């Protein structure tokens, strides 16, 4: 079945995208990423450890030839910082992809939508393929589209909360009104959450804590893989309408 996700000409084999934060070590990261079947991994941009040069590098475990590396601007609270990190990421990496985060508040890690829009506009003009981490608000999602975003990444729930898809109805509106790939980012806590996002018609799901924080991250990575595939298939198959009363599955005709 040819059902590839394509963003600005880049083909994604997997509709499950995974983060690389919070794992016990790089070996566990590698195994979980492999078990997820994903071909996209997110990374953060941070200072090189100049004191301990023997410390290992994430990319020794996650081969950039095998995986698409999607740098984020996590930890950026201003437009200026987000731009700075994005430009550094592009220089350190090999592509124009950036998962843009402009965070508005430490406690909720909700996006600063004003700053996000501003940064999206600037980076899109600089040739970045901007994937903004957004609120689940259809108005800001539309504005991000108009500002030149390549996809919109609305949150399901706060980052790391595991609360699942808190507002499926807003996501439905975003899916209807925004003509870009919609990738749910943040909040997915278990397999059913990922399946719900995909059943709604979202194009992909990005998960980090939901996998890395599980008791067995490698098993959870595999569970998420199946959930995303199942959710996508169910969406494409077209679910039955919900109704209040029963309809018999077995024929009445021929009964004794």
């Amino acid at each position, binding site marked *: 079945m040819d059902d590839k996700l394509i963003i600005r000409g880049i083909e994604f084999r997997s509709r499950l995208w995974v983060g690389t934060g919070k794992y016990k070590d790089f070996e566990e990261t590698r195994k979980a990423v492999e078990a997820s079947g994903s071909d996209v991994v997110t990374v*953060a941009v941070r*200072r090189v450890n*100049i004191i301990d040069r023997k410390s290992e590098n994430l990319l020794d475990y996650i081969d950039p030839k095998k995986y698409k*590396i999607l740098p984020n601007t996590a930890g950026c609270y201003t437009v200026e910082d987000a731009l700075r990190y994005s430009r550094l990421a592009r220089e350190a990496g090999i592509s124009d992809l950036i998962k843009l985060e402009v965070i508005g508040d430490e406690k909720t890690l909700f996006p600063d939508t004003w700053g996000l829009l501003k940064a999206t506009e600037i980076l899109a003009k600089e040739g970045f393929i901007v994937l903004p981490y957004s609120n689940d608000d259809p108005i800001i999602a539309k504005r991000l589209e108009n500002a030149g975003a390549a996809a919109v990444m609305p949150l399901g729930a706060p980052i790391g909360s595991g609360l699942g898809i808190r507002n499926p109805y807003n996501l439905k509106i975003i899916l209807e009104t925004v003509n870009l790939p919609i990738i749910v980012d943040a909040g997915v806590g278990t397999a059913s959450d990922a399946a719900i996002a995909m059943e709604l018609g979202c194009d992909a799901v990005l998960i980090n*804590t939901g996998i890395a924080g599980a008791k067995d991250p490698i098993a959870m990575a595999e569970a998420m893989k199946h959930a995303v595939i199942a959710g996508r298939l169910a969406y494409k198959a077209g679910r039955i309408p919900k109704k209040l009363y029963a309809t018999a599955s077995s024929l009445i005709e021929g009964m004794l």
Partner: protein
Amino acid sequence: MKFTLNGESVETTDGATITGLLRDLGIEPGRVAVEVNLSIIKKADYASFHLKDGDTVEIVNFVGGG
């Protein structure tokens, strides 16, 4: 001369280049980005860019993140 590298004060010989600095630190240039006084230095310029006394240098790479 003295300059600031990733927040630490360090000393090096006058006129050191980015290429030299990365080599001394044992850092593979392909996987990092280098910023001097808030301007990104392109990889093609590493060999010709000379650091000055008082410069603020940042070398970043990719780490685990979501």
